[in-house]
């Protein structure tokens, strides 16, 4: 018990102390968070009318970010899996950082769920026993289950590991390893279920295909590691903690392969849909070329395609992928490309045209952008704290008894 108290206080004191750079970063995130809280208040007093969503296009920026971030959360497994399955030295050292990323990503997902709901005050209706939990029929019920489970698994695995490092004990592999394995499989499940969430609706032909889960996982295992690589490079340059080259190299390889698979799947979808060109291809046609003169998403789609193909080519070039000064460029490009393709580029055209053939467009409002930005800021706020604390412990700067 006394250990727990000192863990909490040491951890808190460590993460709160930092240089000017740290405070400037956290301060600017805090400004965005305050903005987010204000527009969230607006949205829950005036209603969703302050957003660009309508009865026609009723899932927008929030849902898009939710889907994308589930992928980022699942992407953490690209560190944990090589670390434990292949006993990759460099990865094993940083596996806990992947778990910290997963925790922050799932927290962001939860916040986007709140942002998306018309009545967040009634969320308790979903809780078993006091509410009604439509299980196993509702895919959203499944999604809540797997996401909550993933959050808990990562919190246990991550913080238990840090706790042992802090107290200087030994990891009890009897239950820790099985839990790690469950978490690895679970990571796949969160993104699979999120794909099922939208791909099980025949009413939306654009989403109604069984390729969705594998495409989600391919893009997730490209976008997630991109963010991790960026985080690792920042950590290497700004802290005393050293992430091995081998870890970054392996992540780069994973990104390249998954990005290639994602591009291939996109190509397959385009061929299948446009060869027959049924009415069911209208959504994709709207996305790529516009429909009835409405072309809002066309530049976004082609922008995403260019970003993804260009970053794929860059990743294939040894002079880029092995140069850690240039590596952030394709990482940012791939991350942005997938964010567009899998977010707005997937969700919005699912509603265009509507099931009764109506073509309308969706314009996210300022409220939506600020709320989205604020949730990302909150996620990075949490991520910074978690990474800082984890690194402090891994470095031995936070250690039981060290303060005295």
């Amino acid at each position: 018990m006394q250990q727990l108290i000192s863990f909490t206080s040491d951890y808190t004191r460590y993460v709160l102390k930092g240089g000017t750079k740290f405070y400037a970063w956290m301060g600017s995130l805090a400004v965005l968070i305050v903005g987010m809280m204000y527009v969230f208040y607006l949205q829950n007093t005036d209603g969703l009318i302050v957003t660009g969503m309508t009865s026609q296009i009723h899932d927008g920026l929030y849902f898009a970010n939710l889907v994308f971030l589930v992928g980022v959360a699942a992407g953490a497994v690209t560190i944990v899996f090589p670390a434990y399955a292949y006993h990759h030295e460099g990865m094993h050292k940083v596996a806990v950082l992947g778990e910290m990323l997963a925790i922050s990503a799932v927290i962001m997902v939860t916040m986007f769920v709140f942002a998306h709901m018309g009545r967040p005050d009634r969320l308790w209706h979903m809780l078993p026993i006091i509410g009604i939990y439509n299980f196993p029929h509702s895919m959203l019920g499944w999604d809540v289950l797997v996401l909550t489970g993933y959050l808990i698994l990562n919190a246990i695995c991550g913080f238990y590991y840090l706790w042992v490092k802090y107290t200087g004990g030994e990891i009890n592999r009897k239950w820790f390893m099985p839990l790690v394995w469950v978490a690895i499989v679970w990571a796949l499940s969160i993104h699979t279920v999120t794909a099922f969430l939208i791909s099980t609706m025949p009413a939306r032909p654009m989403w109604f295909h069984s390729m969705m889960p594998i495409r989600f996982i391919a893009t997730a295992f490209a976008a997630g590691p991109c963010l991790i690589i960026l985080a690792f490079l920042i950590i290497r340059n700004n802290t005393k903690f050293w992430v091995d080259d081998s870890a970054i190299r392996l992540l780069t390889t994973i990104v390249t392969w998954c990005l290639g698979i994602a591009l291939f799947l996109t190509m397959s979808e385009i061929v299948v849909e446009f060869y027959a060109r049924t009415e069911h291809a209208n959504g994709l046609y709207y996305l790529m070329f516009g429909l009835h003169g409405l072309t809002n998403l066309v530049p976004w789609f082609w922008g995403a395609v260019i970003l993804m193909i260009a970053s794929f080519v860059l990743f294939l070039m040894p002079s880029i992928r092995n140069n850690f000064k240039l590596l952030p460029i394709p990482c940012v490009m791939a991350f942005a490309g997938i964010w567009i393709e899998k977010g707005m580029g997937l969700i919005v055209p699912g509603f265009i045209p509507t099931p009764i053939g109506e073509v309308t467009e969706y314009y996210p409002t300022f409220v939506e952008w600020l709320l989205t930005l604020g949730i990302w800021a909150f996620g990075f706020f949490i991520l910074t704290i978690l990474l800082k604390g984890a690194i402090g412990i891994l470095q031995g700067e936070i250690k039981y008894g060290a303060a005295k």
Partner: protein
Amino acid sequence: MTPNETPPACPAQEQQAECLVPPASADPAASAPKTTRRDFLKAGGTLSLSSLMGAGALMAQSDDAHAAAEWAEHFQKNYRLMTDAEKAEARVRLERRYSQEYGKPVTVDTTGPQPGVLMGYALNIRKCIGCRRCVHACVEENNQSRGKRPGEKIEWIQVLRMERGKFEQGKMDHGYPEGLGIQVGGNAYTPAGQVLEGQYHYNPEKVPEQDATYMPIACMQCEKPPCVKVCPVRTTYREADGPVVIDYNWCIGCRMCMGACPYWARRINLTNPVLPKEEMNPVTHYLGNRPRMRGVVEKCHWCLQRTRHDRYPACVEVCPVGARKFGNLLDPESEVSKILERKNVFRLKAELNTFPKFFYFYD
């Protein structure tokens, strides 16, 4: 009932609430409910819980019926799981709140499904002239939001206008792909007879227009409703007499049902519905046309407030050409049954296996 009474917090009030159970039910089983000791205890427990909440509202020194009702509404159960006493209590609470809000006595009916009734609907697509009286009658009957801002205006029925289209002599050599002569197909048509590629924003001087046909569409009250399956909180469900309904007080506004509906029958209240006092229809049903709130989904329920009392839905009543037919599918003598027996009928998007109880037919 008088709106100024205290909320049902004391046993005496509960007694009164009991008395308010609508006598309208024709179900003999429902009119004389068998109360086992267990049910009685259960009811007692839940009642005391809700009494506690009522007391909470009183302790908050709120004599405003609106605030007290809203406070209690936050904690009420899903309608389907409420006991009769709880339903009555919720009914009293809502009636009080609505009456105060709209400045006239409002009734909230809780009549359940009638035994031996399965509602069905048939629409003569040949007769429809696209006048959209059904749309407007529905809005007035069912208390839909009617504001000016986009998103404040909700209509449950959409009448799609479809081009008649034609094939033309002059386009005989127009081929497909375009500009290359006839390669893999011709282009001698203008869209004709396409289903669900229509427009519902049309404003002609007169209807019917010569070059158009009309296709009204609303909730199909599917036997296998995809919207019900996806709902994470089971707030939307198929009633025993057919219609798919929503407990507006239980809906969390996740909009999964809207995505799952292949007929685009559902609408979200993006903001507090705009419902002028003088236009509000005070005869309401709990699962039907009672005023909705911000952030919840709504849709057609075949005018439960009317049809459970042997009246036609508003759209059927108003249709000037008699294109709309409504009745009991289990009664072989009903109009709908006769139509199913004698006419060519079809269902929209039958390939999706939703099995609508809304049929289209033509003479």
